[in-house]
Structures are given as C-alpha cells and as structure tokens.
C-alpha cells in the first residue's frame, strides 16, 4: 500500500537556524508530492509541489524541497527559521491521475524559539 511517513512528529529550532522536516514516501511509481502548512485554526496552505519537472522545488516563504527517488524522500528545508514558521507541516502524496485522492503524512509540528 502507498504511504507517506513523516519521520519526526515534533521539531524544535531556534530563530535564524536551518529547518529540516523529513518525509519518505512509499509508492510503486513516482507520485506527485506536496508540502502543506497549517497554522492554528486555519486550513492547509500549499507550500510547494513536485510533479517530476525538477527534483529541487522552491516554494513560498523561503522553503524548498528535494525529491530523491533513490531514497524515496522529499524533505523540506529552509535556511533560516522565522517565528512565523511555527505551525504544523504535512507531506502529501498524490499517486493517482484524475481523482486526486491524497495520502497524508501524520504531520510535523515545528516550534521556533527566540
């Protein structure tokens, strides 16, 4: 069965230091992959998407992610954390064409300390 695993449920960083949120996927072929962010009491906002055009994907707010097929990974990074980055982050796979049924990771809660 296809699955998405976020390797850390909680990550804590200091403001100004790098962020790394890890994601592995399991699929018999390369799915479309997305990272979303959810701030408290809000919906999910799309950060970036990978759809096979380029393995390094740049998103909004300085985030980027690299697709590594050999490692089946799609880790999210940011060079310098900001207090406003504190939120929950979801790695999401879309293995299907057409119906767009998503497979969600369990989420990683990012805390940013002054």
């Amino acid at each position, binding site marked *: 069965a296809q699955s998405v695993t976020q390797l850390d449920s909680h990550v804590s960083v200091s403001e100004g230091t790098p962020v790394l949120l890890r994601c592995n996927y399991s699929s018999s072929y390369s799915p479309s992959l997305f990272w979303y962010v959810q701030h408290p009491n809000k919906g999910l906002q799309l950060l970036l998407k990978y759809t096979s055009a380029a393995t390094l994907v740049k998103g909004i707010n300085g985030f980027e992610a690299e697709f590594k097929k050999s490692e089946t990974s799609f880790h999210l990074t940011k060079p310098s954390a900001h207090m406003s980055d504190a939120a929950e982050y*979801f790695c999401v796979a879309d293995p299907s064409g057409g119906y767009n*049924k*998503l497979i969600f990771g369990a989420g990683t809660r990012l805390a940013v300390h002054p």
Partner: protein
Amino acid sequence: DVKVTQSSRYLVKRTGEKVFLECVQDMDHENMFWYRQDPGLGLRLIYFSYDVKMKEKGDIPEGYSVSREKKERFSLILESASTNQTSMYLCASSHWWTGEGNQPQHFGDGTRLSIL
C-alpha cells in the same frame, strides 16, 4: 489566488439535528472534497466529487451525505448529528489531472463543529 470559502468557522449543534456545511470555490475546479481532521487521526476523506451531481465515497462516509448541484458549491450534510462527529471539517478543491501532473488541492479555513 484560489479561494475556497467555508460558510462557518465555528458551529455548535445538538445531537439528532440535521447539519449543513457549505463550501464554495471560485476557480472553476472540477474536483471538490470534504475531510475531517482529528488529533491523532490526521485528515480523513469523507466524500469527494469530480463533477456536478457526481459523488464518490471516501474513507469514512458513514453518517454523512453530500450534494453538488452547482460546480462551485459542495455541501456536506450530517443527517442526524452525533457527538462523535465533533471535529474540524475541511473543504478542498482542485482541477482535474493535466498532462503536467496532478494539481494540488486548495483548502478552506475549516469549520470547527461541536455536537452537544
């Protein structure tokens, strides 16, 4: 920018009531979805629709129904609300698959529903 609007941010209802949650999108998306989000369980798909008057069951359709009479509007209906339906409900929409890969879903801000 894509806008997905859910009619209520917070809603309180009583057990046994019929509850309607409304969602409207302004980007002419073919696909629309309803999820619920619960701590420890993540996001779970309730129903989705890929065209007007079309609907497909998701992973947890029991106790829910949906209606899509117009392309931009997708309603979730709790036929007889129960306390275990207290949750955060999220609506999303997306375009149909294109040759450039699957299109991302765009989410509304959610409705926090409490059933007393």
